[in-house]
Each structure stands twice: as C-alpha cells, then as structure tokens.
C-alpha cells in the first residue's frame, strides 16, 4: 500500500515530517519499506496563461506559444498544439526541473526560433501516464504565477508500506491515518460522509436482493444520476498515480479514490445497462458463464458468488466486474456497489481463477462491514471543490 503524506494528514493532522513519522509508525507495525518522493525531480514549474499559439516559421508540426507568466511574457517552441489562448498550462522555465529529465531546462534555438523552457504533459510531471498533449490546468484551482508543485500538493513524500495479512486496515489511507493519530496523539478527523441526496425514492431507481446472506451480509447501492465524464482534478489524479492506480475519468477515479481512502472496494455499474434495474446477489450455478472486464470468459461453479441484474450475471462478487454493465463514456447514471463479501469465498474464487485485483486483495483479508455506507457516500461525492453530484441511496 502506498500512502501519500498529504492525504494521510487530511485525517491525522500531524506536523511531523515523513522520516520522523516513519520512525514512530514502524515500531507500531506499519512496515514502511521506503519513504519515496515521486516529485523530487519537479522544481520551478509555474502556472502560465497561453496568450498566442502560432505556426513555427520553419516547421509543419511545431508551433510557437507566447505565454504570460507571473512577471512578464516569454516564447517557446511546442511540439503539440492542444492548448488555446486563455488556457492555463504548466511551464518549466529555463533552470526548472521536471521528473522525466535529468538536466534542468535551458534556452535553446529550435529551427531558428528561441525557445525558453517547455510546456509539460501530465506524464512529464509524473501526474498521470497521459502524454497526448500539454496539461490544461483548472482555472478555478490555480492562478498565473502559482508554483505547480505547491498548488497541487505534489511536494510531499509517499510511504510504501508492506501490509501483513493480519492488518488489512493498513490497506487504506484512513487506516494508516488512524494508527498515525493514535501514535502521535493528534485527533483523528472523521470521514465526511454527507451526501446531497435527491428527493426521489431510491426504491424506484433500483432494488437489491441478497439470496446468499452468508456470502454477502451487506450490500449498499447508490444511484448517481447525470455523471460527467471528464478528467478528475489534478490533485486527485496525482494521488492516484502516486498510489499506483491509473487515472481514467472522474467516475472511475471516484471509486478507486474511495477504495484507497477507506479500504472499501467499490464497483460502478452503468445503471441503464442493468436489467430491472435491480441487483441480485446469489451463488452461481455450475457451468454458468461471465465475461469479466479483462475480456476472459469465466466458467463458474456453485462456490462462486455472483452479482446479477434482473436477468444475468454482471460481476464476480468482490473480484471483478463484467463487461456487459461496464461504465463507458456514454454512461449517464451509475450504480455504485459498496458491499461486504465473506473473506473465504472471495479468496477461493480469486485463487481458482488466479485473478487477483485490488478488490479481491482487500476482501480476502477482511474489510470493515461498517465502512460500506460511508465509502459509498465518499465515492458519490468525491471531489468537493468541483461541485457535488446528486445521489440517492438503496441498501439491503
């Protein structure tokens, strides 16, 4: 488990530095194997506004961008042109350093035009793997002249923790924060699980039926209407990347973010693609088939627990979702699953299919049945600065 220190401090607001905190936590069983600084190589990158983008006089592909930084203007040659005048972008001026380059930036002549530093893609800043274009920054989040590292909270360490099977609570940022709060004496900040609920009755949106209460004693479902498929805020993307999870879009990221934060695995279904719409949790019948998200057709046995809609299986409980109900770019309404599955069943299913996921890893070690509801709320309203979504809840 990888825990960014800024995230940990949201719940355990200690002033201790990374090394000091590690020294306190290790003897308490938080086996911190390394204190990493993924953004150590990032220095001097600032937020600038694009004023003009024009063709490079001697190249078909390159362009020349004129930018406004905190104390004036500058020009530089850029290889892509996804930015437009008015956009905020990250600029590494001469002398600045970015993680992907070993040397600081300099002023160079590129085909007869002086180029001062570079504009950066998300990958060049170690924020995500995206290298398709220059990172366009959020106008509400950042201002011209801001230091990008400080502005996005990229200036802190990440704990790389080896988690033994007896401490599944350390498979979440909140769990490690709980230990850190106890160890340092600071007060643990409770998770804010308030949700801006819709007025319609959730029973009208979706039904939940559990046929195997031993395998699934609790199933919390939340319907989220009108989701927007846009990238998550950069700070969120950076945290996911630092934890080793690839940012996709705000919907998928929200479930992963909530899982890393609370330790409760989440799954998002496309509500419109669920027949009924309703959820049935039951044991599979021998020979029943399910196409999982990794495009493998799985042949099931009566030992495997299934999540089904009114007609067909839609997920291998606690292990992996199915293709048919996968969230896509077209998804408007989402059904969020936040459940407790019995350890043993998930472990044996995951082992038999040799299918080990972030979800199965947590379920087979034991999750907190009391965390289901809170985690569902967290992933229904994940990124507060961006405005809340409207939700309704159904649980069984």
């Amino acid at each position, binding site marked *: 488990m990888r825990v960014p220190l800024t995230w940990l401090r949201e719940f355990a607001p200690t002033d201790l530095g990374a090394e000091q905190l590690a020294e306190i936590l290790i003897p308490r069983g938080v086996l911190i194997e390394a204190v990493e600084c993924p953004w150590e190589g990032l220095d001097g990158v600032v937020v600038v506004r694009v004023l003009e983008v024009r063709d490079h006089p001697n190249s078909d592909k390159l362009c020349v961008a004129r930018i406004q930084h905190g104390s004036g203007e500058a020009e530089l040659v850029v290889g892509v042109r996804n930015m437009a005048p008015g956009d905020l972008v990250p600029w590494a001026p001469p002398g600045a350093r970015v993680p992907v380059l070993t040397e600081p930036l300099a002023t160079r002549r590129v085909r007869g035009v002086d180029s001062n530093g570079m504009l950066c893609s998300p990958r060049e800043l170690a924020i995500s793997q995206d290298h398709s274009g220059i990172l366009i920054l959020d106008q509400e989040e950042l201002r011209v002249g801001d230091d990008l590292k400080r502005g996005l909270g990229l200036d802190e360490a990440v704990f790389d923790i080896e988690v033994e*099977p007896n401490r599944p609570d350390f498979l979440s940022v909140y769990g490690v924060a709980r230990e850190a709060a106890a160890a340092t004496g600071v007060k643990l900040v409770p998770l804010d699980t308030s949700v801006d609920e819709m007025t319609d009755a959730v029973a009208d949106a979706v039904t939940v039926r559990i046929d195997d209460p031993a395998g699934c004693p609790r199933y919390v479902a939340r319907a989220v209407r009108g989701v927007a498929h846009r990238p998550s805020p950069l700070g969120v993307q950076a945290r996911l990347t630092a934890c080793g999870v690839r940012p996709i879009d705000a919907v998928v990221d929200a479930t992963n973010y909530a899982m890393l934060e609370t330790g409760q695995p989440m799954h998002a279904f496309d509500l419109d693609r669920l027949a009924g719409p309703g959820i049935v949790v039951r044991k599979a019948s021998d020979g029943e088939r399910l196409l999982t998200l990794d495009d493998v057709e799985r042949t099931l046995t009566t030992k495997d627990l299934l999540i089904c809609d009114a007609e067909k299986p839609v997920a291998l409980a606690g292990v992996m979702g199915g293709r048919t109900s996968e969230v896509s770019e077209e998804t408007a309404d989402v059904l969020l699953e936040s459940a407790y599955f019995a*350890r*043993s069943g998930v472990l044996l299913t995951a082992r038999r299919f040799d299918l080990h996921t972030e979800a199965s890893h947590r379920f*087979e070690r034991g999750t907190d049945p009391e965390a289901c509801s809170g985690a569902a709320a967290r992933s229904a309203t994940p990124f507060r600065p961006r405005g809340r979504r409207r939700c309704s809840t159904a649980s069984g």
Partner: protein
Amino acid sequence: MDPSELLRTLETERAHGRDLFASAASLEELDAANTAVLGRKSRLGEVQRALGTLEEARRRELGKAVNEVRAELAAALEARRNALTVDAESALLAADAIDMTLPGRRGPEGSVHPLTLVEDEIVGLFLRLGYRVAEGPEIEDDWHNFQALNIPEDHPARTMKDSLYVSIPGHPELLLRTETSAVQIRTMQSQPPPVYIVAPGRVYRRETPDATHLAVFHQVEALVVDEGITFADLKGTLEAMAQGLFGEDRKIRFTPSYFPFVEPGAQIGVTCFRCGGVGCPTCGNGWIELLGAGMVHPKVLENCGYDSERYTGFAFGLGIERVAILKYEIPDMRLLIEGDVRFLERFGAA
C-alpha cells in the same frame, strides 16, 4: 668288484653324497646332486646292480648296508631341500619388501561447508542452553505444514509463499515443507510439555534464486513450551543467541510482524556486528533484520493437544544462509550451493 671294494665305494659315496647335498646352493643344484648321487647311473646304482653277483650271505649283508646309505642320503637330501625352500621364500619376500619408512602421498583435504559451520554454531549454542535437537520429514502433509500452524485453506498467508507440491499416487496434498515449523507440530504431538527443542533443516519454496534468495535453503527453528513462559523469556533467549553468534555487544530490537502461528509476532533486528550499529554497507542503518519470532498461538498448542490455558511458549526461526552471508561477507547466496572448490577452500578445516 669284490665285496670289500663294494663296501669301500659305499662309504665313499656316503661321504660324497652328504657333501654334495650340503654344498648345493639352490634347488636346481640339489636336483642335479640328487641325480648324481641317488640316480640309476650313479655309483650307488652300480653297487646295487653288482649285488646280484654275490653269494647269498654277502648279498644280504651288503644289501642292508646299501639300504642304510640310501636312507641316510635320502634324509639328507630332504633336509637340504627343506632348507633351500625356506631360503627361496625368504629371498622372494625380501625382494618384495615394502619400505615402511617412505613418506605417504596426501590426498586433497575437504573442509566443513560454511552452512554446516553456521548450523553447528547455532545448534551448539542451544544444546548448551539445554535444548535438544528435533527433526522432521522434508516431505510434509498439508496439515502439518499449514493447518496445524493456524494457516487454514482460506488463509491469505497461503499466498504469501509459493509451495512445491509432490505428486505421489494415493497421497494427496503432500508438499516439500516450506518451513521447519512443521517440526514444532510433530514434536508436540510426540511428547507432553515441557518442550525445549531446536530443529535445523532444509526447506523448499517456489522461488527463483537470486543474490539473497534460494529455492532450497536451511532454517533453524526453536520451540519452547512450558508453564509460565513469557515474551521476556523469548527476549532473553534471542539476546543470548545474537550475542553468541555475533559478539557480546549485540543489542536486539523487536518490530511487530505477522506469522499465523504466533501471536504476538515480531521481526527481530540485531545491531550490526561490523559497525556496532552506526550504519555501514553491511547493514545500511545499523540494524540487521535477522529472524521472525513470537509467542506460540494458542490454536497451535490446542491443535497438538496441549492445554493452552496452562502452557505458553515461544518459537522463532532463522535462515542459515542469511546468517552465513552476513557472517562471512558472502556477496551472493548462490555461491553457497555452487560447490566451487575455490570458494569452499576459504572455509578451511578449522
């Protein structure tokens, strides 16, 4: 020949034959002398043939004399033959004699393998503390290797290490033991408390060997079960071991860790024996993580039929290869199993 002449010849031949036999220097010469003295064409033969010409009384008298001389010479011949045979054998033996004073040629001398050195040292330490050595089979069943050690079928710890299974018809669920801990179970099943054992042995994991891991390696496991055993006993024992192995000044530290068969469990670090704990290339930060330990889980005691309300215990296990590479500054664990004589010679017979 007249009788008196025959008598004289007889006397001459008696003396002549004796001399000839006595002077024969070899068995060949003796054979020649035999023919010359006692043969048909010898003088004695002539005398015998001449007997027929004599009258009855003389013939009987002389015949008797001839027989006496013949018998006497035959005896002399035989005596000499015996003497010469013994001499010939002695000569043969003398010619073949081994020179016992020659210095022998030395074969190359083997040395004790470093793993054996370390194992003997650790086991010796515990024997002096009053422990006894216990052993178990290297092919174990699932119950001894896992279930009895509080690792049921659905335990996540089963994925922590990959096991090598053995396929023997009629014996399902056999595997090469992944830890010497199974010896704990077999010992407790075979005797009532108190238990003070040390169990060295070979273990197997499905692992690709590298500089710090082998697929086949050795552990030493210790188990103590008695009334009133506490964590303090574990601490004192480990301190004694660390100091015995790495020197009197060693300190130890406990970090919480997890092994299903102990509760609580700990990882034990020892101050570096090279730098004394300030930090060096051997240890990094002054501490060497040496072994895993803990108080025996009550379920493990109960699985072996012990009363977990009455008895408590501790157990620990350490890798012999790991101690060896630390102690002898061996850069790559694989050197220990390659059998390169140049490497092994460094650990000359002590």
